[in-house]
């Protein structure tokens, strides 16, 4: 009888640099998350059905009552905010996925393997980026159906989408951190709701900040979601009331999105990886 698992022969092990190892591990684990989406497409409902519902509700239920100033079309105004909301709303889902992952024995197995420590969380952020791309595409498609149009150049549109992805990627790391510190998927769901719901509503995603009470306006103006919405509206050539708001993030929406996103990634990505390593304590 031959051995159950024969000793490793020459050429069976990959030899490479640490970076090559990290990239290979991230790729293997990203494929794992994508395989899950392929097998259970309903896990995508958060980014496929939800945006359709929200866009239609705001466009046809609340839209008529919301003034955006001037003769701007609310449907055209709405989509920039909806893209941002869709991206921010994936963060609680990320947190839930991370908590669920961490509570299974699979993470213990990963931690006992000679693999990169950062790979598990990086793969999660990349897989979530794919779901965000799907969500953003759905939002844009519904937008086109209700009369939203891109009036700017193709380059500007690409710039807007790239900003949106950067923003979404940053929020994913916030969601990962949230998932690393909470103990149950229910807690992650609740906490995510409490953090991200006000974040989306106290912003210019659905209504111009000018319509809010004076004390609330600075909060809404400095909300990263307002900056993303304003940047998208500006670049798409959609109505953008923020252009007449006298606040730095409203006037420099693109720079504000980049600052916010890079800032969030710089804080939350190392923190998340630190929390992952600290599971040894």
């Amino acid at each position, binding site marked *: 009888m031959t051995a159950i698992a024969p000793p490793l022969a020459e050429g069976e092990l990959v030899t490479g640099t640490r970076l090559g190892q990290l990239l290979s591990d991230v790729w293997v*684990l990203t494929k794992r998350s994508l395989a899950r989406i392929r097998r259970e497409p309903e896990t995508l409902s958060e980014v496929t059905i939800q945006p359709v519902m929200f866009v239609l509700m705001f466009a046809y239920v609340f839209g008529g009552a919301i003034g955006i100033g001037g003769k701007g079309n609310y449907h055209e105004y709405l989509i920039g905010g909806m893209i941002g909301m869709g991206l921010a709303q994936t963060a609680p889902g990320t947190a839930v996925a991370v908590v669920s992952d961490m509570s299974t024995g699979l993470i213990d197995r990963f931690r006992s393997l000679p693999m990169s420590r950062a790979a598990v969380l990086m793969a999660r952020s990349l897989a979530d980026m794919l779901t965000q791309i799907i969500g953003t595409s759905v939002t844009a498609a519904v937008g086109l159906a209700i009369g939203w149009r891109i009036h700017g150049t193709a380059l500007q549109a690409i710039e807007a989408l790239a900003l949106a992805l950067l923003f979404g990627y940053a929020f994913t790391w916030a969601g990962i951190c949230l998932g690393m510190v909470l103990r149950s998927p229910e807690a992650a769901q609740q906490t995510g709701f409490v953090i991200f719901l006000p974040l989306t509503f106290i912003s210019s995603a659905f209504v111009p900040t000018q319509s809010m009470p004076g004390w609330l306006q600075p909060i809404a103006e400095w909300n990263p979601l307002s900056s993303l919405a304003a940047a998208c509206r500006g670049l798409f050539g959609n109505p953008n009331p923020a252009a007449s708001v006298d606040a730095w993030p409203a006037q420099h929406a693109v720079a504000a999105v980049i600052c916010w996103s890079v800032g969030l990634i710089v804080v939350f990505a190392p923190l998340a990886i630190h929390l992952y390593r600290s599971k040894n304590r």
Partner: protein
Amino acid sequence: MTDTPAILAEGLIKNYGKIRALNGLDLAVAPGTVYGLLGPNGAGKTTAVRVLATLLWPDGGHARVMGHDVVTQAAAARRVIGLTGQYAALDEYLTGRSNLLMIGQLSRLTTRAAARRADELLDRFGLTDAAGRAVKTYSGGMRRRLDLAASLIAHPSVLFLDEPTTGLDPSARALMWDIVRQLVADGTTLLLTTQYLDEADQLAGRIAVIDGGKVIAEGAPAELKASVGGQRVVLELADPEDALVAAKALAPFATTEISPPGAQGSLEVPVAAADGLATQVLRALDAVGVSVNDIAVRTASLDDVFLTLTGHKAEEAEEEAK
């Protein structure tokens, strides 16, 4: 051959808040042997395995696996270990084969080597037909086998099996035992934790009994059994009320204290093996007017070892822990 232990733990301490899970645990496991960690839930078995498998940093003491320190040389240690925990560590949504491929690649195997080894292991563990199905459709026994296959894909020198048969039916358990024996024949060092005394007795060459986070007895199963008195006389009394009288009459035969009699009038006495033992016991009881319905003399089991060392039965401890 070298005398360096495959697994060495010295004075391991691990605290969870105020609870001390490991309290100076020492272990030395010779290469190519099966070592059993035996103890009730909460004794520190799983914590010990988690420290040795580089998943937890000890608060005190140190440990080496194949000479690699599990804290300072964790990366090297991870190249030589395999871990199969109490709960199948698999991705439910991937197929059986994809799980093995993933673990193989993350263990630094080339894609080709991972694929070849995955197919061999699937075949070996009778999972070829299920290889293309998602793991969530697998039975408990199939999951355990796949989980074990995943731990084996990169040929670990040291394999940690944390309660590998808990919750399995007898035939699935027998299959796991066969695999364990084959692995040892291949030269793998196995550290096995279990609550099942018969499992430790069947598989392990040496056993450490753990209670309160440290080793309270260590040795080959036969040595441990001998250490608590070679034999047991089990009596069933005609009248349960006679139990105390009987215990007093048998005190001269007992090697250790006689545990309180059972409710049904049964009495168990640890004794040293001797010729004519049963006859002498019956004479002594007859002399004090105690009549006996049944008598049996048996060799001490690991259950007895456990009871004697920890003061409680393995199963009782298990119930309490729940």
